């Protein structure tokens, strides 16, 4: 369970407020989308609740533990074991093969051998097992993003954070990625938090957190 309390984020000097006192809770197994126009602060909010960034004020509790109270080592352990990230860009390591990229989280915990089977199964499930020994630059954009998803899912994280995962993909590949996310949420009970500006994808989630100028609002309230 992720609990956010009165999150405020300022950027720059002089400080410009991007988020104004946001509070909400994400229950385990939920599929939540964070949406809004560009500049509404949706990515910022995602990074705050996923431990990548620190709020200027306010608190984030993951499974009851305040992120503020965790040291660097604990934060990285949390990210390694409980959190999976998917970004707009795939961020695969070009020197490693697809399989080696997928196994990166396991490598950090020194459990590669135990996880090789899992990695291969994941690739199969995502329809890219024939590419396991290729290098990322030999893959198409959709395939690269699926490898990134496999990497995020390898250790069966409790939370999956996705920042515009379909932003760089064509309609068909975007649909494939969305289906994978829904499937993961349904079968594994993974809590998913998805940032998107696409209203269709946002509405696929069970709950939508809609931001207008850094404040939680409702889509209908927006003045167009």
């Amino acid at each position: 369970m992720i609990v956010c309390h009165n999150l405020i984020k300022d950027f720059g000097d002089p400080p410009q407020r991007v988020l104004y006192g946001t509070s909400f809770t994400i229950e385990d197994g939920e599929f939540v989308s964070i949406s809004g126009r560009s500049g509404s602060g949706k990515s910022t909010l995602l990074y705050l609740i996923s431990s990548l960034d620190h709020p200027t004020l306010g608190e984030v509790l993951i499974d009851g533990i305040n992120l503020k109270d965790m040291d660097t080592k604990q934060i990285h352990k949390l990210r390694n074991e409980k959190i999976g990230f998917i970004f707009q860009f795939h961020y695969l390591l070009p020197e490693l093969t697809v399989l080696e990229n997928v196994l990166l989280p396991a490598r950090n915990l020194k459990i590669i051998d135990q996880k090789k089977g899992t990695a291969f199964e994941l690739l199969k499930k995502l329809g890219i097992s024939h590419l396991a020994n290729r290098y990322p630059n030999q893959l198409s954009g959709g395939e690269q993003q699926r490898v990134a998803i496999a990497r995020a899912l390898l250790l069966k994280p409790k939370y999956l954070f996705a920042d515009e995962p379909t932003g760089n993909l064509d309609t068909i590949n975007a649909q494939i990625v969305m289906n994978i996310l829904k499937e993961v949420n349904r079968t594994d009970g993974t809590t998913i938090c998805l940032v998107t500006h696409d209203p269709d994808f946002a509405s696929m989630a069970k709950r939508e957190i809609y931001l207008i100028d850094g404040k939680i609002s409702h889509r209908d309230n927006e003045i167009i």
Partner: protein
Amino acid sequence: MFFLSWRQMVARKKQTILILLGISLGTLLFVSISGVQLGMRYYIAQQLLNHTAHILISGAERKVNPTEVTNAFYGKNEFVAWLISPSGLREEVNLENYGGWYDLLSNDPRVVDFSPRMSAHVILSKGNFNSSVNIIGTIPEKTVRITSIENYMKEGTFMALKGSHNIVIGSGVADDMGVKVGQYINVNAGSGKMGTFKVVGIFHFGNEQVDRSLSFANLPDIQILTKSPGRVTEIAVALFDIDKSQVIADEWKILTTDKVEDWQKANQSFMEMIRVQDFSRYFITTAILVVASFGIYNVLSIMINQKKREIAILRAIGYGPDKILQLILYQGLVLGISGALLGLLLGFLLNIYIGSIDLNIEIGGGHNLWISYDWKIYVTAFISATLSSLIASFIPARTASKMTPMDIMRSE
């Protein structure tokens, strides 16, 4: 993290090999310059030590003091004006207390052995040919033990000096006078002191000046020849540790009015040359290693700039700052260590090659340069190459480890 470091290095083969060559070049130059210089130094030191000693104890020269003479002859209160003031040496150079030295040197555990000597300037003559040399009266078995002169005997042996009226001369003198082993020559110590000696050996140090100006005889012969029986002008001392000669000489100096001189001080110009050589050797190597280190620094700095995204994702996956530090540091270390090892090997091979070149000049019995293969050269080269690459990679590694995922993603 080593796996990732390795993969990243393999991915940029050209850069990796170029830097590797830079570091090996620095190491190679240090190894071969040091090999040649230290070999040369060893050769020269050997040459010097063949006829000097590690420590030479000799009688101090004492001058006549006019005031002392005046006081002795006329008393303190008399005013005396000399027309020609007394001057010159007080007496012949002589060791103050040979017995005392004998006890001290016999009981010092740092001393291998010592040999009393009496040196004199004499003129060797045979027929119409004369040659002025410095003759050293010595005890043959002791001299053989404290020097390596026996290795430099061209004809005859040094031990054949035992007995009376035998002489060992240098190859230069022998050539000049046309003397062979077994022939007799006259030795003239001035003022009618003369003797006939049998040549029992000819040495050849390969040093023109020494081979022309030095000869050896049995100590009692020279004492008799110079009409000063029982007199010893100097004691040659051999030490177990040649590098301690200065310390030990300073220690003994306090005990006596005699002159105690270690071989380094006796050959000060040589030691200064060595110091200059050392300086240039370290300077050249440092310069090359600094350039190579800048290479490492540059390549790694550029790399972490190109790899920001990968660093960001590694951090998001859970690789902590320490792991990122290792990622970059390992690359510098691998480059440093393998570059150093390659340089050591190439330097070693180059030294073998240099040592095999026939220079057509005589150096210590051969025609090749003496090359030092002292393990200390290799250890120094290895450590300095590894250390400099470690420092060069530490700075970019620290920069990389301080990047947070957010900084990187925002700058994208």
